[in-house]
């Protein structure tokens, strides 16, 4: 038996092998069956589930940016538009050596160092596969030069897109504003769904205040993307809702006339149509180029703009608060009439200075030797300070506050622009609350001539002029006249918002004051006569100045403005409306360091009105023909405010 085991039994081996082969074949088939069961499970029973998973893998919902609405002026001039631009884009992922590529690119297209710096900054912040714009406005020539050499530039491409542009450049830049890249903080405050596909948001001006109307709503497209998120092709496309066009009440010609009229001076001009509150012009100088922000301003330029002592980014018309100076006098007169403190024939004697009882302090008129005896109309015409000191004393701060409050002083006008300030209309209550002090009678005198604590924005001054023009009526100032659907063309007009009428007991009081304001511009000796004497329409106006440096108590005479350094000279103010009987325009001008309201700010107001009412500027600056027999340019530098002994801080 054992011996049998040791020799080979070929037959038995073959039998064994046959049975083993059979077992192996069965094993193979059962394993194949196992695979099949599993495959049926995956591919038939769970097919729907896995098909969904596969689609989730590859499909990406991607936003389609809406086309931003255009901004027009009242006559259809384009203030903000979207221009097709050739954008030079670089996909960092596809570029082997970024520095070398930039170096070679700079030989083909113009690349400023700040553009390169800005680009490198963006490359660091965005995903590697996403194209980063290097230049946003290639010229056709540059595009052609690049196309010829493009084989040399893997990962660099020129794409056509829309970019925001402002055809009038710096004109109305403060009004229209600009768009810029959305910051992290802004993302937190907006509805994310509305900004899918958008990279820019209105930052300033109308672009910011009407962001929701201008933006539109993004559409969507389904794109197929690979595992790295790179979009490959479009599977579905839904157009978004384009933003609505805005028609502003702004008149670009008047706006430009006002900017030019300011000349070298910094300052602000606001023109309002009193009949409906539409803003015709709103200028703040110096201005800036909004295009810088659209293309993404580099931090160096931005810092320089912020550090500029003239503050070009700051909208003086809304944010600048200035003492209204003598421009407040007509309103003081009106308050006096309404309260029966004065009547149009009431006379005061101006001897050049006055004192309050029990006080050693002198309150001076700007005219050193005084005006003599004058009635209300003459006091306004010649801007006598003593007359309005007396009026203010008689009224008292409480009645002044109540009356001017009706005009909206000390409150924002709620114009449809962001960042408006409200100025300050002082009151006893305010002084107690903020200064923790009682009100002193001397302070009432200063308020009477628009100095002291009282401040107003140029917009407020234009608005109170408009309300004066409307004899107490008036509308909330606004810039947007109509919204237009870019597809259907349907226009939705913005209705002017009527303000509560200022009810005076006697209608005649309005006419008394307005007549006095016409004396300012149309009568010899009026502070605005030089600028308006040859105007082809009736103008009611008032000059003013806001002091920049105070006069010491022991200084008897203010230094002449011409003797002061430019930055120490007074701000020149002028308010006016015309035609006086049926007003169509109300203007407020502030020329910083312009020194004299009548001669520096008056002509600016005149040119703005000429442009609006006559369609051309007929003003001739004083030159060859002597303006009047006196040969004196009417001036009204205000009596500077000395520090009052009662008040410990100024």
């Amino acid at each position, binding site marked *: 038996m054992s011996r049998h085991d040791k020799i080979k039994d070929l037959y038995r*081996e073959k039998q064994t*092998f046959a049975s*083993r082969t059979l077992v*192996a074949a069965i094993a193979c088939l059962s394993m*194949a069956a196992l*695979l099949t069961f599993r*495959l049926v499970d995956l591919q038939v029973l769970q097919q729907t589930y896995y098909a969904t998973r596969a689609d989730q*893998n590859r499909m990406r919902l991607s936003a389609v940016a809406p086309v931003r609405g255009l901004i027009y002026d009242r006559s259809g001039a384009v203030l903000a538009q979207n221009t097709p631009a050739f954008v030079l884009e670089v996909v960092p992922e596809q570029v082997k050596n970024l520095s070398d590529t930039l170096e070679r690119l700079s030989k083909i297209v113009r690349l400023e160092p700040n553009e390169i710096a800005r680009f490198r900054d963006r490359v660091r912040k965005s995903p590697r596969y996403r194209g980063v714009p290097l230049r946003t406005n290639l010229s056709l020539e540059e595009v052609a030069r690049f196309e010829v050499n493009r084989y040399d530039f893997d990962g660099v491409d020129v794409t056509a897109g829309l970019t925001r542009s402002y055809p009038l450049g710096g004109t109305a830049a403060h009004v229209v504003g600009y768009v810029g890249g959305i910051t992290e903080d802004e993302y937190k405050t907006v509805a994310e769904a509305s900004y899918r596909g958008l990279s820019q948001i209105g930052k300033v001006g109308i672009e910011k205040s009407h962001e929701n109307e201008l933006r539109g709503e993004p559409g969507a497209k389904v794109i197929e993307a690979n595992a790295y998120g790179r979009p490959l092709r479009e599977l579905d496309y839904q157009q978004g809702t384009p933003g609505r066009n805005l028609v502003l009440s702004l008149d670009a010609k008047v706006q430009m006339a006002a900017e030019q009229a300011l000349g070298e001076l910094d300052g602000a001009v606001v023109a309002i149509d009193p009949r409906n509150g539409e803003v015709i012009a709103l200028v703040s100088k110096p201005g800036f180029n909004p295009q810088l922000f659209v293309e993404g301003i580099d931090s160096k330029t931005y810092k320089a703009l912020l550090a500029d002592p003239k503050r070009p980014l700051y909208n003086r018309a809304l944010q600048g608060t200035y003492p209204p100076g003598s421009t407040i006098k007509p309103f003081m007169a009106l308050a006096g009439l309404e309260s029966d403190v004065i009547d149009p024939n009431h006379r005061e004697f101006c001897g050049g200075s006055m004192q309050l009882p029990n006080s050693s302090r002198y309150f001076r008129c700007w005219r050193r030797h005084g005006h003599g005896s004058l009635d209300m109309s003459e006091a306004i015409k010649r801007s006598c300070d003593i007359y309005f000191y007396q009026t203010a004393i008689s009224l008292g701060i409480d009645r002044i506050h109540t009356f001017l409050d009706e005009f909206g002083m000390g409150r924002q006008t709620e114009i449809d622009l962001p960042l408006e300030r409200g100025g300050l209309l002082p009151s006893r209550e305010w002084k107690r609350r903020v200064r923790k002090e009682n009100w002193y009678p001397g302070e009432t005198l200063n308020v009477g001539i628009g100095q002291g604590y009282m401040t107003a924005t140029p917009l407020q001054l234009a608005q109170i002029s408009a309300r004066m023009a409307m004899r107490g009526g008036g509308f909330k100032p606004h810039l947007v006249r109509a919204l237009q659907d870019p597809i259907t063309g349907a226009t939705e007009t913005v209705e002017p918002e009527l303000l509560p009428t200022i009810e005076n007991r006697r209608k005649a009081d309005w006419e008394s004051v307005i007549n006095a304001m016409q004396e300012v511009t149309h009568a010899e000796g009026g502070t605005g006569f030089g600028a308006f004497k040859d105007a082809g329409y009736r103008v009611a106006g008032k000059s003013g100045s806001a002091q920049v440096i105070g006069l010491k108590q022991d200084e008897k005479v203010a230094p002449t403005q011409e003797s002061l350094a430019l930055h120490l000279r007074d701000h020149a103010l002028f308010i006016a409306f015309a035609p006086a009987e049926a007003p169509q325009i109300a203007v407020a001008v502030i020329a910083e360091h312009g020194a004299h309201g009548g001669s520096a700010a008056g002509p600016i107001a005149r040119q703005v009105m000429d442009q609006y009412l006559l369609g051309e500027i007929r003003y001739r600056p004083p030159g060859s023909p002597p303006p009047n027999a006196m040969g004196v340019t009417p001036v009204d530098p205000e009596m500077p405010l000395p520090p009052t002994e009662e008040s410990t801080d100024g």
Partner: protein
Amino acid sequence: MNPLLTPLTSSRPPEPSLSDWFGRLHLDLWMLVLLVGTACVGLVVLYSASGHSMPQVVSQAERLLLGLGMMTLAAQATPEMYRAIAPWFYGVSTVLLVLTLLLGDHAKGAQRWLDFGFIRFQPAEFMKLAMPLAVASYLHGQPLPPSFKTILSTLAMIAVPTGLVAVQPDLGTSMLILAAGGFALYFGGLGYRWIFGAIGAVAAAAPVLWTRLHDYQRQRVLTFLDPESDPLGTGYHITQSKIAIGSGGLFGKGWLNGTQAKLDFLPESHTDFIFAVYSEELGLMGVMFLLGLYLAIVGRGLYIAFRAQDTFQRLLAGALSLTFFVYVFINMGMVIGLLPVVGVPLPLVSYGGTSMVSMLAGFGMLMSIQTHRKLLAS
């Protein structure tokens, strides 16, 4: 007249069939058609899986031609020659494996390549052929069913190269080498007690084995048990693979229309996971066809083994055929989530893999067995 004698009395010899013509080249027509057919399916899938890369298809085709050349060459040698060189081949391969461990190149954390300057190869590929040759040759000289002593010697023969490859580490290949030797022993008549005993022993040793595994191997096993637990990490392969296969459905998305591989969601889509691409694009129907081709190859191999004329040839042919099936099973099982991820390509279809040449050389041996039949036998 006895009709059986008719051919003998015929004046002319019968016309040689196509099969006979190939037989004279020592090629098995059936096997050749099945192998070339499967490889062609592979090239077509590869074109899609590689993202329409014609250069990859061409390079794969070149590798296929080289493999077919090796197969033809291998088919020319007689089974007796194989039996004679088997011990030497085994010995040299083992030495090369040892050298690999001592001098081999490190690539991806494993030491698999041996570089002689003029040639660079994986000795484990030689062992895939040397192992069944050596075991079959050894058992051929022993009375079968194998005695206890024979079994022990055989197990030692199997264990040494398996261990050498496993510590490289290359778990997939070592399993295939183990399988090749084991199948030869199985066909030699290894008692079922031994087989079930071995399975039991492995199950018992599993916890010990677990502690000896490399981290990435352990991670693969964990991932296999719960792929969704780490969908972006190691479970990503298997999850994306299942999505590809499942989304293919019954009829598939159509050739070149699969999204998983084209959009790079499926890693290794043209190598180890090419079966997922195939399943996605051609669906269950296509998968059944491919599985049918593989089963036909294995069946033809077992048929050759069954018809072989001596024990060595039977054991060799049987072991080679079953090893081929194990390749298919491990790869498909891994891609559809039945088995942990191990680096085993889908034979004849996956891109690259030096395994294609060695595998086709193995099929050359099968053809040699089929075509070098002695007329006197049977």
